């Protein structure tokens, strides 16, 4: 207990130190070291703290009456500690990466401010997770949103970055409003801001209140998590922010939204939900499926690396939500074991996504660092110039595509098994709806693999598509080290899934399941036969022995052969160049055509002729393929334009005459007094 507290104290002090050091070091040569090394150490201590908390007792700490009647409470149970672990692992790697990465900004920007904001951002996320009081939760939540907003517009010379920052700010305030509403409902019921009180008295909440609290929390936290249709800030903010910030936002910050949902659900009943609440789960499954499929469809047609990764975050949030929703459905029908399975699947995907998305954003950041472009149409051939970045990015790509033996496969396997277990649900309609959720889920997995083939293949493989790529160099070692940490975790969590699963088991108190990391995952069916087995260590051994066997076989049979290097087959026309390669847009063209109802692609063709109108001699031909963002055009634009319309009307109140304003004051006072009078009568 004592060590716990001191660990946390050390971490917090270090975060603050890092931020202040950054602020005061004033762009000296050591700013990067001074700001990011404390962050690293602090993250390391947080990792220790969370691991100790998960394996040991929950950590509870109160400073009474910080504000009148409001205690400052810190409470870290297994759930909070698990999310702390997610935050701190990623922030450790990202701060290591940032030491090298921020060099790019040193000449143009003030890195000291960045270091300050960066540290405060991580600290605020940690404090959000461990604060046990809705009042302080909201304060830290706002702090997190504001610091991340400033980090998004850090590169504010470009107007588009400021614009996307504003979108982000508006959406995040929209979400906070709903969270506030949900907390206020809890306050009305209990008269307290403490989560403990919410938790203990939630069983006596009326049915409607419970539903409303859930719905508001879902919308509020969902906005932060980036569910569709509240996602529009996400691709913009993630693209505009510096890549290390995008890595933190995408890998960690949107998970805080998930944490909020988990916390709400557990506070409102956890595993003891009644069947009346299965619609919560169903709502989450539906929203999750929609987010997954639409997110991945937008990711696959994107040719901006970071935008594609951002859309893929929406997709993965969708997959996490499917698992969480399944867990709620099972919990509400009193299928505790299945609920635990679905929860493990969803939380495993949470940590996996944090790890590989952090890795991928850092990889994209390295590409931007080296080439100064995010547009895949200008990249290509990077694998020869940046072999390490390419390898690490490939590991991330394989993991996120859900391929064995990497970690994405395990969590998607678990989610699939949770979907399959829907046969134990007693209601037929629920069964079929859950079963049909596997269609978008499977389509998502398929298209996600295609997305990452495109991302990796177009930017890293084949021939460079622009000239300046010839001059680029591999990124600094600290960046590679930062990425390697997460890549190693990707492999570790893939090959030894029980590392993660036992962690989750103890964190969420699911099953007394002391498993060694080398165990096989075993699920049983009704007749106690094996429903499914998966033992990744064995699979890896099989894969490697097969590799050794076939290598030996080929060597023995084939004997010694020569390898000749020659140019690629060009059908005898000679000299292929980069203009004949497949582009990012053409690579995803079939998928774009199949789903044309969603994308509404159309080609703008501009022709220029020799001699004016002679339509036979073409001088130049320019084809531009445009896809629409239907959410922005069909949902947000009407809302925005109607708002502007209404505000125009309201502006007429503002006449500019002092008498009119006085009249408004008078009317307000009279109405208020009337209201007070009337309400007292009743």
């Amino acid at each position, binding site marked *: 207990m004592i060590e716990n507290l001191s660990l946390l104290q050390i971490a917090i002090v270090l975060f603050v130190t890092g931020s202040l050091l950054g602020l005061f070091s004033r762009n000296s040569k050591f700013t990067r070291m001074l700001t990011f090394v404390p962050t690293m150490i602090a993250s390391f201590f947080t990792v220790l703290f969370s691991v100790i908390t998960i394996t040991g007792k929950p950590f509870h700490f109160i400073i009474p009456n910080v504000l009148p009647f409001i205690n400052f409470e810190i409470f870290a149970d297994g759930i909070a500690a698990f999310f702390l672990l997610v935050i701190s692992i990623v922030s450790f790697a990202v701060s290591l990466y940032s030491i090298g990465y921020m060099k790019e900004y040193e000449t143009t920007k003030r890195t000291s401010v960045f270091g300050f904001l960066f540290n405060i951002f991580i600290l605020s996320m940690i404090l959000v997770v461990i604060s046990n009081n809705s009042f302080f939760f909201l304060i830290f939540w706002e702090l997190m949103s504001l610091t991340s907003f400033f980090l998004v517009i850090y590169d504010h010379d470009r107007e588009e970055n400021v614009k996307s920052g504003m979108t982000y700010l508006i959406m995040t305030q929209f979400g906070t409003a709903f969270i506030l509403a949900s907390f206020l409902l809890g306050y009305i019921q209990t008269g307290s801001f403490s989560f403990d009180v919410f938790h203990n008295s939630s069983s006596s909440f009326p049915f409607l209140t419970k539903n409303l609290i859930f719905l508001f929390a879902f919308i509020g936290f969902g906005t932060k998590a980036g569910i569709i249709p509240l996602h529009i800030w996400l691709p913009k903010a993630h693209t505009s922010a510096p890549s290390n910030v995008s890595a933190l936002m995408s890998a960690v910050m949107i998970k805080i939204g998930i944490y909020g949902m988990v916390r709400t659900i557990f506070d409102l009943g956890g595993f003891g939900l009644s069947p009346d609440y299965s619609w919560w789960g169903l709502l989450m499954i539906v929203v999750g499926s929609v987010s997954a499929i639409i997110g991945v469809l937008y990711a696959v047609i994107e040719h901006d690396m970071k935008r594609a990764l951002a859309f893929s975050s929406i997709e993965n949030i969708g997959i996490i939500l499917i698992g969480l929703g399944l867990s709620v459905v099972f919990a509400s029908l009193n299928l505790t074991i299945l609920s635990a399975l679905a929860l493990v699947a969803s939380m495993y995907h949470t940590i996996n996504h944090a790890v590989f998305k952090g890795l991928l954003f850092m990889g994209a950041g390295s590409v931007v660092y080296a080439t100064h472009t995010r547009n895949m149409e200008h990249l290509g*051939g990077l*694998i020869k110039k940046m072999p390490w970045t390419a390898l690490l990015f490939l590991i991330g790509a394989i993991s996120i595509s*859900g*391929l*064995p033996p990497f970690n994405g*496969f395990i969590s998607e396997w678990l989610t699939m*098994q949770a979907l*399959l277990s829907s046969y134990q649900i007693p209601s037929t309609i629920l*069964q*079929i709806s859950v079963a*049909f959720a*596997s*269609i978008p889920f*499977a*389509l998502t*997995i*398929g298209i996600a*693999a*295609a997305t990452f*083939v*495109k991302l*990796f*293949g*177009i930017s890293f*493989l*084949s*021939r460079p598509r622009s000239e300046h790529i010839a001059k680029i160099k591999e990124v600094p070692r600290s960046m590679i080290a930062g990425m390697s940490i997460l890549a190693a975790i990707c492999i570790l969590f893939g090959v030894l899934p029980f590392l993660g699963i036992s962690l989750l088991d103890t964190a969420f108190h699911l099953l007394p399941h002391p498993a060694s990391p080398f165990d096989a995952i075993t699920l049983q*069916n009704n007749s106690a*036969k094996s*429903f*499914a*087995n*998966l*033992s990744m260590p*064995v*699979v890896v051994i*099989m*894969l490697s022995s*097969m*590799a050794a066997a*076939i*290598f030996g076989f*080929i060597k023995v049979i*084939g004997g010694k*052969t020569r*390898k*000749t*290097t*020659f*140019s*690629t*087959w060009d059908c005898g026309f000679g000299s292929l160049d980069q203009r004949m*390669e*497949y582009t990012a847009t*053409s*690579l995803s*063209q*079939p*998928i774009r055509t*199949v789903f044309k109802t969603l994308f509404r692609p159309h080609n703008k063709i501009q022709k220029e002729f020799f001699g004016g109108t002679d339509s036979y001699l073409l001088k130049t031909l320019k084809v531009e393929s445009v896809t629409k963002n239907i959410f922005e055009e069909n949902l947000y634009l009407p809302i925005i334009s109607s708002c502007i319309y209404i505000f125009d009307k309201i502006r007429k109140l503002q006449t500019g005459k002092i008498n009119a304003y006085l009249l408004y004051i008078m009317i307000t006072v009279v109405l208020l007094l009337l209201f007070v009078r009337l309400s007292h009568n009743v």
Partner: protein
Amino acid sequence: MYSIAEILIGVIQGLAIILLSPLITGIMQKTKARTQKRIGATILQPYYDIIKLIKKDEVVSDQSSWIFKVCPWINFVALATAAFFIPLFLTYSPFGLAGDLLLVVGLFALARFFTMLAGLDVASSFGGLGSSREMMFSALLEPALFLTIFIVALTYGGTNLSTIVAAVAGATLLPHPQLIFAAIAMFIIVLGETGRLPFDNPATHLELTMVHEAMVLEYSGKSLALIEWSQAIKLMILLALVVNIFAPWGISSSITVATLGIGFISLVAKISLLAVIIAYLESTIAKWRLFRIPDLITIAIASSMIGMVLYYL
């Protein structure tokens, strides 16, 4: 948990798929030749091809990176490992404890992922074109495949292949109408996954029509041998799955020489028959236009959706 004999038979089952797979390809090629009124090469031709190719020198594109070089190996290793999870002529495989049907699908996806990357790696338009088409096929086939797995897994109580095949062997006739729909979907999936007509023509080298061939166009020598062999293994795995899930007759459920023998012979007969049917079908239909393929895939999805509904009601 399993005796030495069982583990041995498990290994033999895996090796049987790896070693017999070129034979199935040979049978299909022969059938196609005969339906086209040609004599055709012997059914052992794929073996000769593979051995010949292994001994040949290689030409590698100067644009390619290590992805291009490891792709055939990853292809072969992934697919050959997948072969060990398939119960072939015995209703269970001891490797069922290590992985299930979803893992097999995952290993297929791993192989395909690298093939698509290798197609992009050589910087020719052909490779990109093949990868681009394969991206669409694989993405769209996934839901059909998962739904079919869903039906089969729920009907027979597990995604563990040993559980499935054992339950199939114990079941009478065809008591489950959903399996008819699953079988239709599965047949379309097999055609798509292995790149047969009308999805893709394995015999063509015309840029308008090729998909898989376009991705592996640059390969030669050992690498080509590995690619061809792993394609054959994939075909054999899928055919064995179809046969063992939808037509389990003759499979052995105990380890005696007689039943194992019957199991082996009936399996080879059934797979060959299926291969002949597919090859015959290929000779009678033309390749479809690329954007009509999704129609066919949606038939598979719709079929498995109906199967799902039938299962639950």
